[in-house]
């Protein structure tokens, strides 16, 4: 059984983790086109090589990122999301028309 080196908890059996999907930067939902948005929602890189992806250590509910080779299954490194997200992210009011809800 594979071992993942969790940035918070150290090396643990993979059964303690939940896969969280490819790391996909979100386009600005306020300004992107429908096609760009659909691409973000549905499409994946699905590369045969090193990918960046989300993982969660299930018992501690800790989310982190990993870089893993999707053919050899080697985990190159794992790291805290703070490396990519260091400050508060804000959304701007939508440009599109507003419908009274």
């Amino acid at each position: 059984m594979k071992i993942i080196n969790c940035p918070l908890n150290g090396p643990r059996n993979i059964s303690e983790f939940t896969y969280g999907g490819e790391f996909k930067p979100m386009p600005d939902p306020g300004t992107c086109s429908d096609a760009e948005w659909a691409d973000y929602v549905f499409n994946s890189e699905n590369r045969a090589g090193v990918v960046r992806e989300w993982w969660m250590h299930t018992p501690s509910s800790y989310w982190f990122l990993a870089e893993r080779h999707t053919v050899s299954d080697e985990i190159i490194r794992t790291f805290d999301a703070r490396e990519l997200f260091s400050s508060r992210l804000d959304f701007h009011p939508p440009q599109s028309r507003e419908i009274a809800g």
Partner: protein
Amino acid sequence: MNSSNRLPAPMGLLIDRDQPLDFSFDGKSYQGFKGDSIASALLANGRFLLSRSFKYHRPRGPLTMAGQDANSLVQLPREPNVLADAHPLEAGLEVQGQNFNGSLDNDRDAYLGKFSKFMPVGFYYRSFYKPKGMWKVWEPIIRKKAGLGVLDLTFQPEYYDKAYLFTDLAVIGAGPAGLQAALAAANCGAQVLLIEQQPVLGGALAYARFDIAGNRAENLRRELLDAVLGHANIRVLSNATCNAWFTDNYLPVIQGKRMYKVRARQCLVCSGSFDQPVIFRNNDLPGVMLCSAAQRLMKLYAVKPGQRAVVLTGNDDGYYTALDLHDQGVEVAALVDLRNSADPALSRALEQRKIPHLTGSTVYEALHEKGMRHVNGVEVRTISGQGQGQVSDSGLRLDCDLLCMSAGYMPVYQLLCQAGGKLAYDDQKAEFNLSGLPANLAVAGSANGRHGLDNVLADGANAGLDAARALGLDVGAERASYARETPVNFDWPIFPHPKGKDFVDFDEDLQVRDIINATKIGYRDVQLVKRYSTVGMGPSQGRHSALPTARLVAASTQRNISETGVTTARPPFVAEKLAHVAGRAFDPYRQTPMHRRHLEAGAKMMPAGIWQRPAFYGKAEDRERCMQEEARHVRTKVGLIDVSTLGGLDIRGPDAAELLNRMYTFAFLKQPVGRSRYALMTNEQGAVIDDGVCARFAEEHFYVTATTSGVDRIYQQMLKWNAQWRLDVDIANVTAALCAVNVAGPDSRKVLEKLCPDLDLSAEGFPYLAVRQGTVAGIKARLLRVGFVGELGYEIHVPARHGLALWDALVSAGQVHDIRPFGVETQRLLRLEKGHVIISQDTDGMTHPAEIDMGWAVSRTKPFFVGRRSLDILEAQPLKRKLVGFTLPKGSPQPLEGHLVLDGPDISGNVTSCEYSASLGRIIGLAYAGARQSEPGQQIPIRVEGAIVVMATVVKLPFFDPENLRQGL
């Protein structure tokens, strides 16, 4: 009970002559000793014919005596397909043969062997299907003929368990290499786990011979064992099979009724090699066995394998076997060496013992009497050297009742190839070798291509030191050096016979021609040969067929053997009982703190996710009546329901409202303290995935409920989003920390007033959709006024440890008001009467808010929420379907949930909820219907049981109390 085949001590390393055991085989009584395997005990009694082969029903006896072949699969009372040569003998064991019609000795299906010409490789693909439908006739017959043993369908699982082990170095195989490696590493300070499949350690040292004098093996074995067994750093697991290699050196080791899951920092495989058969006509007869099998019989079990033997060999080990046989009183009629010349010392040893010696020759055919039950002679021919497998036109007949053969060795490669090791064929040495192992995994000994005993020992020692070094330990010792190797593999031990029965795969009854013909038909890749011919797909999984198949396929397709290769090695190494893999059964489920009360009240429990909840309070067969009565009671008096399984999340901090704003569709920034709002959640695709109630208890404190089965996922999603948004908020999943009870009905206020001294429960003081914190029955509680069932009601949330007390207090206070519990099914009816949607019952994976009239719950003014952009896109498209309420008159055939709504010849939707409502005197339900069928007043056809179509009427929701007055009291 003829035991004259037993040899005197010191033969019989494994048996205890002081413990005789009685057993039976096919009804006949025999005696063996403790330590015997079933096969060795039978052979000691002269019984060699143990099974009939898969396709041709040929008589078979042991080939390896090591559990590596399927020739001796027998049936035990509760278990089929037992390896007789691996299963220990037990007192009173009743053993049966398998796969015969009549008796093992007289199998009526043996005629199939005569028709083998009509059953060429893959014959079943070329026939049995014409005319159309014929396969339906043939299949049951063929299915009955296929299969080996019979499964006992009444067998109940026994106790098997699992344990974890951690070690610095796992050494797999305690032969000379493994023992030496374990010592080398342990002496450097490594913690070593030594895993050995056999009951005794030593590997080939326990049964083989390495010198003419014949004592080196035992002396060396003793010496190594003394060092290993006493060593503080070495733990030995014997009778233990390492059955696979999994990522990061995770090793399942099966011993007795336990599977150890071993995690090793370093792993060293010293698994040895498989002695290989020679291929010639009738090489499968009882009495034809591998050289090592004969040695095992003699040394381990003290069984004389025959009276008069012929030894056929392609290496020096056959000579040692001949010497062993001679020493134990077996007349060796000849040693037939496939090679042209032999080691002079060995030749002399044969000469001294008057053993006839033939070189450059092979057994061309093993001979037998009618019935083929035992070999009774061989025909020996010289190898003509004119091509692969060519022999002279005539030969010499020798009588014998035992034929021992060894064509060479195949490394026990399975674990290593499972780990990614690659096999390459060395044309010079005519053997496969391994490379490309992952980090922290190594191989040593004969599995690593070392064959001379001193080289094996050196390899083990070096590997042990390497492992210690990799562990970061101090390694003082020098590397041992290697001597030149004598080749052990004869490069073409395959002698096809025009009449066939020259078996390449014993399990599948495949002859040389079958392999060749498969390639001629066009299946040239060895994987295709395997799939088309089934070579290697039987119980022994290619241990003896992989090497000859690679050679034959390479020759037939004009490629080299490395290119051809062998088929993929897959776990498990040895067939493993499901019981071992499954371990003990664990079946966790969750109960609320009030569980006992539900049972006492006669609840019919139902699973809700992993929880147990009361469906209603009554017997299963009274469902309808109980539901209607409970519902009436809630509408006219007061009821209570345990809703503890509901998800609960505490959201606190300056950005609490902002988080909710982004996670849910509604707006929360301006939600007043003391009020609740509907919390609808969509995923990024815009599909509705959960709902609940969001209560604001303070500026920076929200409490959100969620569905029972959705809450954990929602909690995880919130954390994942916030890992990116980095809002200043704490999110806690308090589902299990809190319990909740919903008290509902016109009299619910009266019940609660008795228990809440510090709360103003009046309509003005605690209006509909408000939330309060207060004390209920002395317990600190959160109260929410929600309208799910459409009656005046209060949802009371308390710490879980007070759940039972709360329930009891409510029941007690409510007694005078005739309070009754109601269950999940009743609640479903009540909410249906109000037209409320249940997520994942009335929504599917694609439902978006507009389809269920929840546009009102979607805020258009806030900057962002998960799924928002997708909703914009979806709502710009014409609506295809809508969830509508429908009614049918009482007495009409009632649609079941899942029945279809039609639009002409097409399916336009489906019924998601449907019940008879006594309150309304009608059948009511929710269903998806086509957008153009969804106006109130329209009729929608619903196809119910028996293909009857009823016309239901679309109505506005809610069905009951359309002004929603009752919940607002």
